[in-house]
């Protein structure tokens, strides 16, 4: 089974390992991620005002470009799959908006017409976690596990965009379970903690770092208090914030010990027997933990 995969701007730069492990895992699970031949930035976070049609052109352009790719891959369910939670939320919201508002879709199609593109309104956007849960199924994943993640106490960090807004959520927004189910399927231990969807500060890392530092402190201390030794996430910006700001806070003496942050596909890769290529995008070195548990 092949899916039209939209990388977004980030998966080829500081989240390379996320993409690499996800693509390798997808091949083993027969839910292969095939990259769209040409794509553009989705313009996250989606525009919430009612009078900015221009900001909705980029997501619709992606959806219409994916439609042609889906025909090639013979995907009858017309899915666009993303790995980045922010892309997932933005594309889903705009997709629902243009499906409900015919006039807006027509306006946007007029714009795209001059580039020989048109969006029919028939695609569905899915985050890869949804594909793993609904199309592949956790039983299949359990069958393919070669190395159980024994000793890993994993705090699943959803962040905001996987669960918000209601149009775009992939699970129950107050008590989500998909990442915990995945953890159990891989043989890891689930940590129950209250900060699983406390916003990391997102784009404030550009000019208001203090806000992000506040959040990162809260989140990571909360995970450690509950006994976690690793955090998993599905969003490149969350991963960057949680990872790099911990190192910053450690240098300032605000925190003593750091907790490594993984993309969920990295742990899937370890469990399914794929070798991880590099750890250079990590700020907090995860190798000591993985070596001590005999996982690499």
């Amino acid at each position: 089974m092949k899916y039209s995969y939209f990388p977004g701007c980030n998966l080829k730069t500081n989240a390379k390992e996320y993409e690499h492990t996800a693509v390798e895992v997808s091949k083993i699970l027969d839910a292969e991620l095939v990259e769209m031949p040409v794509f553009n930035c989705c313009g996250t976070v989606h525009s919430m005002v009612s009078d900015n049609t221009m900001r909705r052109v980029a997501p619709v352009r992606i959806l219409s470009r994916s439609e042609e790719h889906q025909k090639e891959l013979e995907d009858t369910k017309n899915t666009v799959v993303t790995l980045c939670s922010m892309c997932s939320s933005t594309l889903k919201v705009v997709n629902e908006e243009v499906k409900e508002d015919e006039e807006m879709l027509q306006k946007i199609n007029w714009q795209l017409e001059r580039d020989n593109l048109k969006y029919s309104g028939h695609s569905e956007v899915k985050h890869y976690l949804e594909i793993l849960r609904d199309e592949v199924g956790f039983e299949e994943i359990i069958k393919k596990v070669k190395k159980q993640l024994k000793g890993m106490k994993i705090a699943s960090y959803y962040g905001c965009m996987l669960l918000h807004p209601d149009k775009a959520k992939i699970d129950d927004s107050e008590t989500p379970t998909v990442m915990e189910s995945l953890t159990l399927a891989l043989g890891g231990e689930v940590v129950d903690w209250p900060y699983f969807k406390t916003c990391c500060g997102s784009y404030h890392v550009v000019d208001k770092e203090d806000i992000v530092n506040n959040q990162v402190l809260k989140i990571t201390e909360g995970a450690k208090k509950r006994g976690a030794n690793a955090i998993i996430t599905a969003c490149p910006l969350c991963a960057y914030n949680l990872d790099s700001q911990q190192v910053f806070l450690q240098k300032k003496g605000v925190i003593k010990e750091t907790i490594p942050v993984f993309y969920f596909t990295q742990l899937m890769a370890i469990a399914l027997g794929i070798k991880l290529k590099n750890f250079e995008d990590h700020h907090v070195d995860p190798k000591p933990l993985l070596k001590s548990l005999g996982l690499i």
Partner: protein
Amino acid sequence: MSFEYIKIGKEEKEFISKIEDISGQNLYACYQCGKCTAGCSFSNQMDLTVNQVIHRLQLGQKEKVLSAKSPWVCASCLTCTVRCPRDIDVAAIMESVREYILRYEPERIERMKVTEEKAKKLPNIALVGSFRKNTEL
């Protein structure tokens, strides 16, 4: 007890109408339950809490709202929207306050400095999100 006399005249009504226009939300649906503020991840860093912002908008208090730090502390995490019992898109209202300032009163904004050093190490997704929310497009 302290009192403050406020005026609700033509200017205030125009402001309210503009905010409702841009956000597409009915400000008067809010009955100040406070769930938005309770769920907001950044409440402790805001000068006016979320429900206080909505209340002042309902009364058209333009100066108080536009000079607050709160709209710029908001990170569009949408927790408020998801929890509002009246189905108001609270984040959209916050965004329309930002848009109002960006479009009509940009002198109020503290310019951020994106130095070369910063831009070098930040992930591009952070810059995309930041420019979308903090600049006029």
